[in-house]
């Protein structure tokens, strides 16, 4: 039995490596910039959703305020670059560290809340942060920050002629988020998080310090999301509060994981691969007046999935386990 477990872990790793290689080869055949753009976003949301899944899926602390960390990452990177000339590479890292610290500072009071109250707190805090940034003159207030584009360079992480560098960075980010999850899944923390999600009282009786477990999950999750935010700032080279800290980002991080399978290793990737292209396509086909149609499509999908496969789409790939569960 022990061997089966190790084998499954190894198989996950091999499958992920294969997917990564295939994804890396796709741009050789797909030259269309629009499609490449969608691929970058898909990979980015896969990474974000995977990170969100660590706190909300594994540890069970549903956050609908992760836009806060995404925005913090974007703002830290952009501000450090435009105001102090700090390279985005350091900016992304700094954004991650700041977000992790803030996630823990917010977790201190919020993790005493349970269930719905915690969710509400995350939404409210992200909205407050949005308002603060909209009124913070030094950070560009509601107008945001225009990141001056110089020339294509890996140093400043700016590319105007080709989307490919962004594509590969997003791919690496998605791989890192996946790998971190894979690694944590079979670690002390991974077990503690799942225990905390299922039954905090029982976890506490088994020596799990529930509060610290939640703090750890929040820090890792916020760090990775902020790095994604920093990347996004470089990718679009213009940010304003609404476009990086708006509530829709919190949803866009949560939905792929929920659709694909919350608290699972493959759920977020699967969800992102289906949802993000769908969003972009519905948006472009229906045009400017179709704002919100993508969300209607989301909603419909979520309803259908939760009726047919409550455990998420990954359930389709594990029929045996499902049979055993019945």
């Amino acid at each position, binding site marked *: *039995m022990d061997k089966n477990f190790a084998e499954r872990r190894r198989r996950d790793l091999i499958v992920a490596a294969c997917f990564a290689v295939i994804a890396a080869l796709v741009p050789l055949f797909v030259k269309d910039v629009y499609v490449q753009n969608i691929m970058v976003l898909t990979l980015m949301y896969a990474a974000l959703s995977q990170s969100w899944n660590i706190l909300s899926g594994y540890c069970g602390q549903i956050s609908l305020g992760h836009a806060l960390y995404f925005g913090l990452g974007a703002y830290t990177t952009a501000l450090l670059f435009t105001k102090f000339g700090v390279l985005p590479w350091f900016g992304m890292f700094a954004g991650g560290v700041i977000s992790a610290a803030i996630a823990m500072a917010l977790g201190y009071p919020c993790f005493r809340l349970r269930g719905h109250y915690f969710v509400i707190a995350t939404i409210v805090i992200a909205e407050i942060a949005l308002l603060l940034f909209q009124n913070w003159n030094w950070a560009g207030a509601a107008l945001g920050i225009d990141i001056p584009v110089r020339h294509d360079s890996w140093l400043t992480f700016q590319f105007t002629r080709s989307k490919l560098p962004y594509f590969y960075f997003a791919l690496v980010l998605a791989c890192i988020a996946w790998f971190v999850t894979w690694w944590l899944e079979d670690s002390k923390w991974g077990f*503690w998080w799942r225990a905390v999600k*299922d039954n905090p009282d*029982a976890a506490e*009786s*088994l020596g799990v*310090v529930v509060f610290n477990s939640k703090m750890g999950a929040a820090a890792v999750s916020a760090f990775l999301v902020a790095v994604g935010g920093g990347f996004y700032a470089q990718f679009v080279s213009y940010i304003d509060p609404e476009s990086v800290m708006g509530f829709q980002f919190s949803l866009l991080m949560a939905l792929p994981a929920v659709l694909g399978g919350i608290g699972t290793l493959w759920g977020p990737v699967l969800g992102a691969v289906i949802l993000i292209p769908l969003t972009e396509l519905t948006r472009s086909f229906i045009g400017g007046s179709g704002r919100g149609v993508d969300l209607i499509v989301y909603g419909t999908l979520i309803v259908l999935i939760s009726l047919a496969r409550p455990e998420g789409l990954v359930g389709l790939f594990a029929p045996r386990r499902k049979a*055993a569960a019945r």
Partner: protein
Amino acid sequence: MTALLETRAVWQRFGGLIANSDVSISVGRGEIVGLIGPNGAGKSTLFNLIAGVLPPTEGSILFDGEDVTRLPAAERCQRGIGRTFQVVKSFETMTVIDNVIVGALIRNTVMREARRKAYEVLEFAGLAARANVLASDLIPSEKRRLEVARALATEPKLLLLDEVLTGLTPIEAQTGVELVRRVRDTGVTVLMVEHVMEIVMPLVDRAIVLDLGKVLVEGKPADVVRDPKVITAYLGDRHAVSA
């Protein structure tokens, strides 16, 4: 030798309700002690005070020679107090083995060792065949055994069992009794809350009867069941007179 567990003049009040008043009990190393009493006697409260779910209003709790009165549950587990829950609290979305690994991780930081330890405990508890089943798929008696296995994986010095034998069929209960005996034989001290007198009395070395939050009687099971005060507490005055 000092007792493994000792409560000294423990009081617990919930507003105007006094759940435990001046409870002083002690549990010696290697004993199986039964904590019994009618409904509302304060057994569960005392149990939770010992496990560290909440601190007592007054009094102190000593474990292994140290004052643990103010320590949180997780810290008490670290010191060697393991517990089960009256209403089973399995990690439902996790497999049986994963449930037990959570407990094993407190003494084994390397995953492979924790996993090995968890398998050992499952063998011991007779659940090895169900290792890879989801906890939500277990039948009630198996869930009870999982509770015990999970607590045992933390390698406790003192195991607190909260009504693990209640609601089982006679055969299941008998298996449970044997499991408790084997646990004691490995050197673990057991304090068990139980309702079913006829099962628990042959099992325990000593019984402590609580009534209305106070220690009513304490002693050998055979003496305790014949004590008029105990009969009154359980069945009312008339029966005590006729007995």
